[in-house]
């Protein structure tokens, strides 16, 4: 490297157009990807495992087809084979993809090749993309190998070729999500065996939830919207694409939502992986913050889908949306509980060199900017959802419904403020991200369930008096009690509403106080850190000047 002015190498990187980037990627494929593919191709177990899996599934499909052909009409056999095959394929992808992906980064660490890779300067993003592509290619190979078996159902009838093709495409989309999930896990571990076990322990229950909830469960809901979609069929989405009529619901529920869900989850795990692989002084926050900004907007919109799905009780849909969005915001608090208090010295210097904008700095590392984004997006989202709910209630002509939405909206907002404040203070007081996350989860559990335990005890002590329920007012679930009591004539109605309102106010005030305390402590610590840094720099500079000053040299003057 020459002694050329350093500034030349620190010009702000200019992003090349997408076309040029794709062209460059085509000409120079990711080296991590090509190397991993080469290694996989040389493993004798690869073709063996592929052949065994394909053989077993072919055998199973053949057996089912053979047994059913005699006494069941072919179209039903075809449909059953289609459901069976893609259910198995889903399981293979859901369990295999995270397991394959989870060992990739961990094995670099355990094999002690990670440092060499890190020092090449490839960067966490390039390595993550290479690892993703490698694991995805491997999983895609399974899907491709299984293609002829899946096409068997088409021969019997009952499903169209388009449905089979779409099912394969969806399987490939799901594989991307599963691989990203595995990579996210892998980036946290240095032992591949542990990473694989953790990935399986998490992916199995999640896949069961997806299969039963988003598969079987959602097919029933979709059957309500589009009767053409058979109910209680796990593989319903390809059928829906072919049979549902094209309208706004189609675009929102069948196109936008699944795509946004897949893209959002994949992007999240990609950013998690990049952040976990970067150094402690690197900017590990901007990527996740960008994701959060986009995703929260999408989630806020998507959480209004129940309003579309429940046209007769739209305000109930709005309340469901509020609760779902609050759940997402709790996840946001847990996510930002891992933020550093402020940008590192390195990040700050790089910002200065690149003349980073205020927006870039706002989106960079720092607890309070992160919580600022969370609060801005969260409060806006909750406010809009409450307004939509009130609007729906107004359209329904129900003042009570509007009041119910307001109660839910107010409680959700106040409780969110409290959680954000708790995140701020607990993170500012902790050395790392684990303690504030544990504090947050424990508080959430205690605050949600604890008041109900107290209410139950109070009820027993008060001889079953229904007014004992007011003891549960601090629990966010109490919003349901408040909403149900709005049109009640029970004696304790006034008391419950008053205590509930006091709890709402209490959470909000406590949240603001915690936020203030967290911000003050965070600012104090950051300033102390910068002062220490400045002091060190000054001491080093003074020492250097002393060494260079000829008047200080021994014997001089």
């Amino acid at each position, binding site marked *: 490297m020459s002694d050329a002015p350093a500034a030349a190498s620190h010009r702000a990187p200019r992003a090349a157009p997408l076309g040029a980037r794709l062209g460059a990627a085509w000409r120079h494929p990711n080296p991590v990807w090509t190397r991993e593919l080469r290694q996989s191709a040389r493993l004798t177990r690869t073709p063996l495992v592929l052949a065994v899996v394909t053989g077993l599934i072919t055998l199973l499909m053949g057996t089912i087809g053979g047994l059913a052909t005699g006494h069941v009409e072919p179209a039903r056999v075809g449909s059953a084979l289609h459901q069976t095959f893609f259910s198995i394929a889903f399981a293979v992808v859901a369990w295999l993809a995270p397991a394959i992906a989870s060992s990739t980064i961990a094995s670099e660490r355990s094999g002690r090749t990670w440092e060499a890779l890190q*020092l090449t300067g490839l960067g966490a993003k390039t390595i993550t993309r290479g690892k993703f592509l490698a694991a995805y290619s491997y999983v895609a190979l399974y899907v491709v190998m299984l293609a002829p078996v899946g096409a068997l159902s088409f021969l019997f009838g009952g499903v169209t070729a388009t449905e089979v093709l779409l099912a394969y495409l969806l399987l490939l989309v799901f594989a991307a999500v599963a691989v990203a999930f595995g990579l996210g896990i892998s980036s946290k571990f240095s032992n591949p065996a542990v990473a694989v076990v953790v990935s399986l322990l998490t992916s199995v229950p999640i896949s069961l939830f997806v299969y039963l909830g988003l598969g079987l469960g959602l097919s029933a809901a979709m059957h309500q919207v589009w009767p053409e979609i058979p109910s209680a069929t796990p593989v319903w989405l390809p059928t829906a694409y072919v049979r549902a009529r094209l309208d706004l619901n189609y675009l929102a529920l069948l196109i936008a939502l699944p795509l946004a869900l897949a893209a959002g989850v994949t992007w999240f795990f990609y950013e998690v992986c990049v952040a976990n692989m970067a150094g402690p002084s690197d900017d590990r926050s901007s990527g996740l913050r960008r994701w959060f900004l986009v995703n929260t907007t999408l989630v806020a919109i998507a959480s209004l889908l129940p309003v579309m799905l429940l046209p007769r009780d739209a305000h109930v849909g709005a309340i469901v949306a509020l609760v779902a969005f609050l759940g997402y915001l709790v996840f946001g608090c847990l996510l930002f509980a891992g933020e550093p208090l402020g940008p590192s010295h390195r990040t700050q210097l790089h910002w200065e060199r690149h003349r980073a904008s205020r927006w870039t700095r706002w989106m960079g590392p720092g607890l309070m900017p992160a919580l600022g984004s969370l609060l801005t997006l969260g409060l806006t989202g909750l406010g809009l959802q409450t307004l939509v709910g009130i609007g729906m209630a107004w359209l329904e002509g129900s003042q009570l419904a509007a009041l119910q939405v307001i109660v839910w909206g107010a409680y959700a907002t106040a409780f969110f403020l409290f959680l954000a404040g708790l995140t701020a203070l607990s993170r500012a007081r902790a050395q790392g991200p684990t303690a504030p996350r544990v504090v947050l989860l424990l508080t959430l559990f205690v605050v949600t369930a604890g008041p109900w335990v107290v209410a139950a005890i109070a009820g027993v002590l008060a001889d079953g008096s229904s007014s004992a329920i007011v003891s549960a007012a601090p629990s966010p679930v109490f919003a349901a009690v408040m909403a149900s009591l709005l049109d009640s004539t029970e004696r304790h109605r006034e008391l419950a509403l008053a205590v509930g309102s006091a709890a709402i106010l209490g959470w909000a005030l406590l949240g603001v106080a915690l936020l203030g305390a967290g911000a003050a402590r965070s600012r104090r610590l950051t300033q102390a850190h910068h002062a220490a840094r400045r002091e060190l720099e000054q001491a080093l500079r003074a020492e250097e000047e002393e060494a260079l000053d000829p008047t200080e040299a021994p014997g001089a003057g």
Partner: protein
Amino acid sequence: MSAPAARRAGAPAIRVRHLWHRFGSRDVLRDVNLELGHGEIFGFIGPNGAGKTTTIRILATLLEPMAGRVEVDGWDVSVDPEEVRRVVGYMPDHAGVYEHVTVREYLEFFAEAYRVGDLGVVDASVELTDLGKLQTRMVSALSKGMKQRLQLARILLHDPKVLILDEPASDLDPRARIEIRDLLLELRELGKTVFLSSHILTELSDVCTSIGILERGQLVVAGPIGELAERLAAARAERPAARAESEPGEAPGDRLGAPPVAPPVRRRLKLRVLGDAHAVLPLLHGGGGVLGVQASAGGLLLVEHAGGEAFVAEVVRYLVTQGVMVVGVEPERNELERLFLEVTQGDLQ
């Protein structure tokens, strides 16, 4: 705000200033200061747990210093790790390799990862490390020595100015060690600065232009071996009883400022002569600088003395002039081993 200068022009190859690092409540490095010029081969020595690998990992940007400043070729490792990685080639102790690729594929992968552009560097690297005949062999089939060579070839791909090698010859057979040593000398001729740690002191003394001894997280001494030996000898002469009088809690680094730490060193010299060694005893007993002589079977003589290399030469010359057939001369320790034992206490942290 204008960008601060990132790289100091005309900076030494490595500059460590007031480096501190801590793991938990344990200070692993304590105020380490070090400067290494371009083209030097620096041997980094210290007992196990002294903090060598921590220092090396900080230099290689794999660990961030908690306090102090570390610069490689003028780049601050804390601020510009990417730039440091461009000028540094780091070979860790017991590094792993990708097993299911050929030697050529392995090096091509790293050349691409380093974005060197021209894959001709792979040929140059292979030639320098003498891996030409093994290019098509699978990495998994290589011996330990060959894998070590492969690692060296890897870190040379991007033509780094500074090579940082952590125990490059550990676990290698004698032949492979000699080959690595020769390779290091060749690299020095190519203008590379080499910073290496090793437990094999004789190996370091053969190749290093200077050394640094680290003990309990502090750099005890640093400089050219000969110069250090002279400084210690001078200090010893000035304060012969310093060790006995030194404070119990005195840090090893304090000895650098006021180096006398030991009574006069009793060195031992092994001589082998033809015939009966006992017959030679009267010739040596009572000689200037001779502190004691023992003879044993096989013509072996063990001479205890307080002199240097000139004394050894003088003894040999004297014996030859007296008609003694000297067939072997072996100083018991080499200079670096003696230096190491003298300035360290062997304490682990």
